[in-house]
Structure formats: C-alpha cells, structure tokens
C-alpha cells in the first residue's frame, strides 16, 4: 500500500467539495467525510484506544475540521490535514481525558464493537508493541508503515520535519521488532 497521489480530476473534485463545505454545504461535507472516513478512522484506531474511542476521535476530528476549514490552505493533501487534526485531538485527549463528552450515543450503541475480543495473538502483540511507542513515533509508524502515507505526507500531517518523521519510522520499526521478536524482513 504505497502512496497514490490523487490524480488531477480527483483533486479537482476534492477542491470543489472543500470549497462548497467551506461555504457551508452539508452535502459537500458529507461527501468529504465519505471519501476520507476510512483513512482517518484507520489512523485513529492505530493511534490507540478501543474502537469506540477511535471512531469518537475520528468523528470529533471531522466536526472540528468542518468548523476550521478556512485553515486548510491546500499545501498538504486534505487527507494529511485531516489526520493532523486527529493527531492533535489525540494529544489533547491524552492531556485532558475528556473523550466521550460529545459522543454520538445512537451511533455507538448501534455498532458491533466486539471485534477485538477474538483477535489473533499476533495482532494483540502488535497492539501492545504499538502502545509502547511514544505517541509521535506511533503516529509516524501508523501513517507510514501501516498506512499508505509517504514520509512527506506524514510530515505534513504531524507538522514535524521530514527528517524527524523518517527517524520516527525507523526507530518505531526497530522498537516493534524488538518488542515482537524476530528478524526484520
């Protein structure tokens, strides 16, 4: 899963959707959520916490993104910007432990969240190893190793220098290797 820069036309559609959502269109905002929910939720899940918390974090990030769309300057991809919002929300939540205040009860109650009870041992080991990483390292690993972000895109999302992201990814991989055992492949 390598980075796939959006093609010209897809980018145009996205820019049009961002402009409409910025003007207040709920339909355009919904379309943007639909386009990016997979990447944003996957990133939130890899940052830690349970599935309910991860989806809650992703929802909060989308809502915040909508009200702060004027801050999206288009230099980074919209996906990277959204993941940056998720990352900053996660950092704030760690400090304040205020998660769940605006949780959508109807949504949380309607889903089957029991997936992790039956996860394989390797997955549990990976989750433990990931939670042992510092949060910025975990975020870089989640974007570049587990996700399909390039180093540059991850640097945009996390607002970190490119070299720092590369270092985080390398050290994160080494730490995962150490914690999970075995040789690098």
């Amino acid at each position, binding site marked *: *899963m*390598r*980075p796939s*820069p959006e093609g010209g036309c897809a980018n145009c559609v996205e820019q049009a959707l961002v402009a*409409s959502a910025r*003007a*207040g*269109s*709920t*339909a355009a*905002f*919904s379309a943007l*959520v*639909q386009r990016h*929910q*997979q990447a944003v*939720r*996957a990133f939130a*899940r*890899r940052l830690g916490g349970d599935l309910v918390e991860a*989806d809650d974090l*992703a*929802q*909060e990030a*989308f*809502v915040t993104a*909508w*009200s702060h769309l004027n801050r999206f300057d288009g230099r980074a991809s919209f996906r990277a910007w959204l993941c940056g919002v998720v990352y900053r929300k996660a950092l704030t939540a760690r400090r304040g432990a205020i998660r769940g205040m*605006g949780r*959508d009860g*109807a*949504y949380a109650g*309607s*889903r089957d969240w029991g*997936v992790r009870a039956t*996860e394989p041992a*390797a*997955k549990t080991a*990976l989750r433990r190893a990931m939670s042992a990483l510092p949060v910025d390292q975990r975020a870089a690993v*989640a974007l*570049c*190793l*587990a*996700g399909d972000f*390039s*180093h*540059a*895109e991850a640097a945009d999302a996390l607002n970190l220098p490119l070299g720092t992201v590369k270092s985080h*990814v390398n050290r994160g*991989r080494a730490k*995962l*290797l150490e914690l*999970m*055992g*075995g*040789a*690098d*492949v």
Partner: protein
Amino acid sequence: MSESEPSGVGGLDLAVLFAEDIPPAHDTEFVAAVVRRAGRQRLAFELMWSGLVAALSALVLWSIGPVLGPVIKPFAGLAAVFAPIGLLVAAVLFMVHPRTAPI
C-alpha cells in the same frame, strides 16, 4: 510522495496485521453520525450566538426605550403584520442556506 516503507517486521507483515483495523470504504452510518454531531454542535453555537445577540439588543432597546417610545408608539399595530413576515423570511432563509438546508 514516493518513499516507500517496507512494512515487514519480525517476519510479520504489519500491513496485513493492520489491515484488520481498516474500516469499510463506505460507511453511511458513520457519515450520518458525523453529520448529526456537527449539526448538534452547530445548533448549540447558533442558539448561543442568537441568545447573545438577543440579550444585547434587549439591553440597547432598554437603554434607549424612553427616547424611542413616543416615536414608535403610533406604529405599534404594525407588529402584528411584520412579526409573521419576519418569521416567514427566517424560515425560508433557514431552508435555503447551505448550512441548514436539508441534504
């Protein structure tokens, strides 16, 4: 946008393990929940803002009331006409404004 990262660690392919975390590409339930949440937050903000404006307007009217009283008294009967018109205009604006229009 091009540096690639090997995802293998310790004989395990991280991409495969992490793939279990990937939600479905289309999840209308999640999108609906986000829109509901955004709508609630926006409504709360609008109510707070409207309340603030109403309170400030009341304060201004209260402070200049004694001066305006004699001037507007002859037009008091027009309130019955303009109040429904004002409500109608507000309702139309609410329906057509992109922030509040039905999807």
